[in-house]
């Protein structure tokens, strides 16, 4: 096994383990959010292995670094402790849900595996910020601007919600 394959399994295990830990820890909200961080960092590692370096860094900066910190910030502001939530009941539903998810995953993999694309040679500068920037501001400039419009609407909405009185 090459080093890259070994690293892939390490990161994949960490990602799945983090996701499972998040679901198992729903009552301990901060621990759940921190498990999510582990998943995010492991995903970033997998992106690096795929040579998508910029996406990997953005994954850590935006998802692990900013979004989950905001989650934790809100959880701490609300001061949610473990006893704020009742212990789980209706275990039957959990097991039914889990087996249903596993069945769907199995079907999904079965449907997807025959259509896997062949391994391709990666283009020069693949995954770097230059390539991404060029594509973003030439081929995809309209979706890019649309996204910024959406974000602007969200910011204006947040400001209006947070301000009691405008003017």
């Amino acid at each position, binding site marked *: 096994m090459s080093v890259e394959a070994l690293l892939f399994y390490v990161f994949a295990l960490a990602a799945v383990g983090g996701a499972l830990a998040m679901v198992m820890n729903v009552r301990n909200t901060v621990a759940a959010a*921190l498990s999510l961080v582990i998943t995010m960092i492991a995903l970033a590692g997998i992106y690096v292995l795929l040579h998508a370096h910029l996406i990997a860094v953005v994954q850590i900066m935006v998802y692990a670094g*900013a979004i989950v*910190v905001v989650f934790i910030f809100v959880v*701490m502001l609300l001061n949610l402790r473990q006893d704020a939530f009742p212990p789980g009941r209706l275990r039957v539903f959990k097991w039914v849900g889990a087996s249903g998810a596993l069945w769907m995953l199995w079907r999904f993999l079965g449907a997807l595996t025959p259509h896997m694309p062949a391994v391709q040679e990666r283009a020069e500068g693949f995954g770097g*910020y230059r390539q991404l920037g060029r594509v973003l501001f030439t081929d995809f400039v309209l979706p890019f601007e649309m996204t910024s419009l959406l974000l602007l609407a969200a910011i204006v909405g947040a400001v209006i919600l947070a301000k009691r009185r405008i003017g």
Partner: protein
Amino acid sequence: MPWETLFKVLFILIVGVAVFAPVVTWVERKQSAVMQDRIGANRADLFGIRILGLLHPAADVIKLIFKEDVVPDGANRTMHLLAPLIAAMGAIISFAVIPYGGKYTFGDNTINLVAADVDWGILYIFAVGSIAAYGTVIAGWASNNNWSMLGSLRAAAQMISYEVTMGLSVVGCFIVFGTLRLTDMVFAQDQTFRVFGFLEAFGWFESVPAVLSWIQLPMWGVFLQPLGFIMFLTAVMAENKRPPFDIPEGESEIVAGYHTEYSGMRFGLFFMAEFIEVVVIAGLMTSIFLGGWSIPWLPTATIVGGLEPAFGSGMANLLCMVAQVLTFILKVAIMIWVQMLLRWTLPRFRYDQVMDLCWKILLPLSILNAFVTGTIVLLIQGLG
């Protein structure tokens, strides 16, 4: 190749973490003493030898290691242990992308004096910084103490806010140097530019008079992006949570903030992380704005070319390497001194002042800076 990387990592650990960081704690004490007209710490002695109080960092470490390690009742033990480790880890691994020397050729081998020469160098530091923020956030949450919790809340808000400004305030440098790779940035600064050259670029003069042509400055970020320099320094200092931005631990309001419940070496790790970050900040500022390892007015080609006839190629490269690494260390020392000067000059800001500074002053200014820089670069490219 693995040996080379190992040596680079060892060099960073020894110089950056094991030598610079403890010395910075000494500098902090001595500088505050000088600024407040005191003598400063000089009592620690080893067989009667005091060497200006330089033994105090060692005494600190011994004291911290032998102190009782208290975990408060009701604290989350795992998280309480993990938090200082995350904070210190983030500070130490930031060194990986900071170049402390250029590229030197010895026969067939080329040595690149940086541990990891990655294309997205500066983004790596931002990413590591955002992970290190978890150290402080978890610390307060895991301590089961309301003061700690308040400190963590403040830290979370402050660090998220200043990450935004920190990234945006160096966009001007990205535009000017055309790269995110720190080694390339330093290479771009390893030359001089004519201060009045812009008159030619804009076509206001046919050619600049010879006298003015002689006035040359090293092509450092601080001369090309003076506003960016000030804004970035402010943002990284706020990110480091040291005074005047130490509201997460503001002892006059919330005891000691996020590390109220920490003692012994666990507190020591938070303490160390801050001082290592001071060195990282100095290295980063040096690399982006002060020309890194480059010697002002003496580009690498000139040094090597001048020494080569007398000493031969290998020796010339070696001498150049030593001179430039020493230059880097000197610049880092100067930037540490600047940070200490600011830290002991300014009183702590209020929480709302810190937030106003970030969102109402630095953020609009940094966007304006990026806009103006982009416009000027486009104009020069279009005209030249």
